[in-house]
């Protein structure tokens, strides 16, 4: 295992993030904020932080709107409207706002959200390179939109001579993440994260499945297991965590499934800190290389074992998943996820009581490209 790309990636939370941005105020000459339009109460967190740091007036905002079709209104559309009103209240006409629509379902009813997200990133390629700082807030973006978009952006930055800084940001609210559950209608490797996992010629190579677990993903786990057909399952549970009982509670929730039909033994379980995304990034790197080494004899000289990761966890941990897969995509690591059926009904109103100021204190941002990596 060579030096990890993001092992020491700088990350900031809440007030530290505000002061970091305030300090860099002068060098952030042309920033852009890419964010989703969604019902998630965290949608405007990063926008608020940029406002607090005093850099908002120079920020361009790109809104990613995703839906089955442009006129679609679902059960949470009212909350989306509320979020847009709040956005306009913060911006007060100071920023240039543009909107990009990502259609998630094609006419034949196939789910294409992830592919369209790659396309959107492609289309924005030239434009994004003109900015000095790119902030991507995944708070109101589902993984099938945010992951392909970020991966393409990282790829574009890697290939270009641009030294733009790229920040990935999300609000941290475990309870909310546990409740926002995608209905798993489609189960597949996320576009751009297939690696060699779908290749017929590689099918004989062992597949390790590392689901990073949170609450409420029972249906997804069962579908993903059938889809991936792994040789071994190595679940990753969040520990340390704000709630020290959290890993136990999560394990108890899936115990019947994991222990019996899937035959997961205690030694297959790993733990990664839920206090930041980089621990899960390091764990998954270690796990991937460990299995490639120990399973070499089973591969009969036809290649190396592969690792499939599934971010069934909080948004913050999912950043770690994203980074590790971007780094190892060429080496047999990919992402499988179950999505496409909208969200399971939840009472978002309960979570909207918190004030934006309070919510912004838990905003976590990782610096993934630019100055520290030159």
């Amino acid at each position, binding site marked *: 295992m060579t030096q990890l790309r993001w092992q020491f990636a700088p990350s900031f939370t809440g007030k530290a993030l505000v002061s970091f941005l305030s300090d860099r105020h002068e060098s952030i000459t042309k920033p852009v904020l890419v964010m989703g339009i969604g019902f998630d109460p965290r949608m405007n967190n990063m926008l608020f932080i940029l406002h607090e740091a005093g850099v908002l007036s120079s920020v361009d905002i790109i809104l990613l709107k995703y839906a089955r079709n442009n006129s679609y209104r679902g059960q949470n559309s009212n909350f989306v409207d509320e979020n847009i009103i709040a956005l306009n209240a913060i911006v007060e006409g100071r920023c240039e706002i543009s909107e990009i629509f990502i259609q998630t379902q094609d006419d*034949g009813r196939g789910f294409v959200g992830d592919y369209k997200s790659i396309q959107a990133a492609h289309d924005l390629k030239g434009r994004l390179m003109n900015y000095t700082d790119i902030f991507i807030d995944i708070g109101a973006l589902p993984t099938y939109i945010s992951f392909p978009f970020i991966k393409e952006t990282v790829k574009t930055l890697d290939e270009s001579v641009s030294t733009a800084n790229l920040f990935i940001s999300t609000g941290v609210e475990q309870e909310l993440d546990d409740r926002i559950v995608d209905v798993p209608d489609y189960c597949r490797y996320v576009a751009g994260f297939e690696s060699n996992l779908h290749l*017929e*010629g590689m099918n004989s190579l062992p597949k390790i499945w590392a689901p990073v677990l949170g609450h409420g993903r029972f249906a997804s786990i069962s579908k993903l297991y059938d889809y991936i057909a792994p040789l071994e399952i190595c679940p990753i549970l969040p520990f340390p965590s704000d709630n020290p009982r959290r890993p136990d509670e999560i394990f108890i929730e899936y115990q019947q499934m994991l222990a019996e*039909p899937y035959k997961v033994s205690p030694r297959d379980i790993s733990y990664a800190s839920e206090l930041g995304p980089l621990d899960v990034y390091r764990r998954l790197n270690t796990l991937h290389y460990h299995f490639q080494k120990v399973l070499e004899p089973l591969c009969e000289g036809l290649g190396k074992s592969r690792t499939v990761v599934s971010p069934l966890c909080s948004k913050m941990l999912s950043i770690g998943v994203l980074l590790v897969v971007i780094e190892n995509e060429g080496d047999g690591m990919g992402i499988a996820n179950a999505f496409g059926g909208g969200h399971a009904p939840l009472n978002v109103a309960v979570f909207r009581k918190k004030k934006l100021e309070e919510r912004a204190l838990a905003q976590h941002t990782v610096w993934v490209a630019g100055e520290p990596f030159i």
Partner: protein
Amino acid sequence: MTLENPFLKRAAEHATEVTEFVDIFALKCLDKLDEYRDLLLKLHVILEATPGGGKTTLLKLITPEPLRQLGQEPAESSRYLLRQKLQALGFIKQDGSPAVLGIYQSLITGYETIAFNAVSVEGFLRLLDLRLLIKAIRAALFSCGGNFPRDLSKLEICITDNGQQVDTSLRSLFSGNCRQVFQMLSAEEQHFAQALSLHKNDQLEGHKELYSLDILKNTVWKFEGLEHNFKHILLLDDVHGLHKEYWESLRNLIPSRKLSVPIWYGVRSQVFALDELFDGETWSGTIPERDCIRIKLDSNRRRSRDTDAFLREVAEKRIRRAPTEVLSKGTSLDKFLGNRFKKSYDYKVIVNQLITEIYSLIDNNDRFVNITQHLPDLTSPTHETAINLIKLIIWMERERNRPQLTLFDTPEEKNLEDFFQRSEIRGVAELFLRNQNQVPYYYSDDVIIDIASGNVQQYLNVAGKLFNRVLTNVRVKRAHCLPPEDQDEILRLAAREFWNDIPRYAPQGESVQRFLRVVGTYCRHQTYRRTASYAPGITGIGISVTDYQSILKEKKQNHPAFGKLSEVMRICIAYNLFESGKDCIVRCKGRDWLVLYLNRLLCVYFDLPLCYGGFREQQRKVLCDWLEGDTSNFMPQEGLF
């Protein structure tokens, strides 16, 4: 204690062991192939079914692992019957070795990216060729008794004839030691994927035909020096998952006169146009039993002896995989479904309500003055008392509404006894009483078979939900047998889930659901009329064949409303929301009608009976209005309760 529910396992996808897969495979499923026994290995085969109809399970049965496993089964084994059947169909040789080399390839995954990147049909065929040849090596190794990938180098490919049209680069790859061939093909596939991820479509060159067909036709396999001759078959599953251009390129292979290797296509009914769903033709331009065989796996959707036996076998095989604590209670589903009510129902209130109803009819019509003598004994009202009173009300309502009265009109009381004996009147009375008074109506294993609408997956889902409750009862040491109340509650819940899921899985889901809501509501209104004119109930609609043909014709002339109607009808049939088929053309009122019956789970959702036969004719214009949710052309009828 974990008790795994065997009904919730999909045979083809969930079975981890080959023995488990063959154990839950229902032998009756192969009966559909009997008719075509001599043609199965000579022509292309189209296996058509609605989602969950059993295509994948059937295709996977003729892959090397199950065939080898079954070929080794001794005569005393419970799986021996399946082996004999496969032997008779020509898939297994007399000595137990596989006679065919089934090369299975699902087309639902791994092809999304090429479609999205607009890779040409030629590129698609090239990728498919590579994958099929890779799969062929794997399948051949299993069929010869080798271990994959350990024994790859022991397998050799010999080409007996250099096919004329074969792409030379592909042909040159596919010869000699299999380890090298496998690695080369694999590298080619990887190269293809790499170019794709870099969006370099210019590097994704391909060819216009599926060359693997010619290559495999001339291939002989040598394992450890011994020659093995197999009849190759391509098993292309989930063809409906492909982008239209790609599956059309595969479909175009069917009419080709030169049949090198037969292809079995597993397709969902959704790929067919509306007219193709009804007539016996396969796809336009192909002739059945000359170019191909089209087998509809769930053509017996309406309850028949075959469906009945098949689904009972499915249930029994599943229960045999249940935990011992459950298995000890019995191996058929009816052992777990009781018919004794959990509680006793108080019929006094209902009976009083019905008596009031009868007296108000008598008060309003002096023709019924003598009717009180036909009232049952009311001292201790039972279920039967209520049923008889409902029958009486129906009779009175019919008499009241008799269109032509005679000069000295009196009710035809002499017919009353006959009327009371009629089974459809009994059926509708039961429906009225139970559905309006929370007395369980949907229960027993017969009902569950009806509710399946001939679809295995639907049956397994419903039975699985019931079995979940059985497992819970066993776990907490309660009586394992489910009372009718529990069965009714679970089935209604399953129906609600089925209904709510429609917009998610069906194309144009919202329109389809809107249309079905009107159809269901209409059937409900007609069924629950006080006269019960269509006893035991309406569960479908009929469209005249003339109207149907004109819809197809005018759709082509871009008449938007008919175009939409035909598309919604097509989706409903393809997704098993309407049960229909060639057998659903009925002669009535001097015209031929195409009858579309609601899926039986939808009947549960709309509180309808599960019988067939009751339908109301509708004009195409009315159906077009229904598409928009317009119910103005039918007035809600007054119900009994």
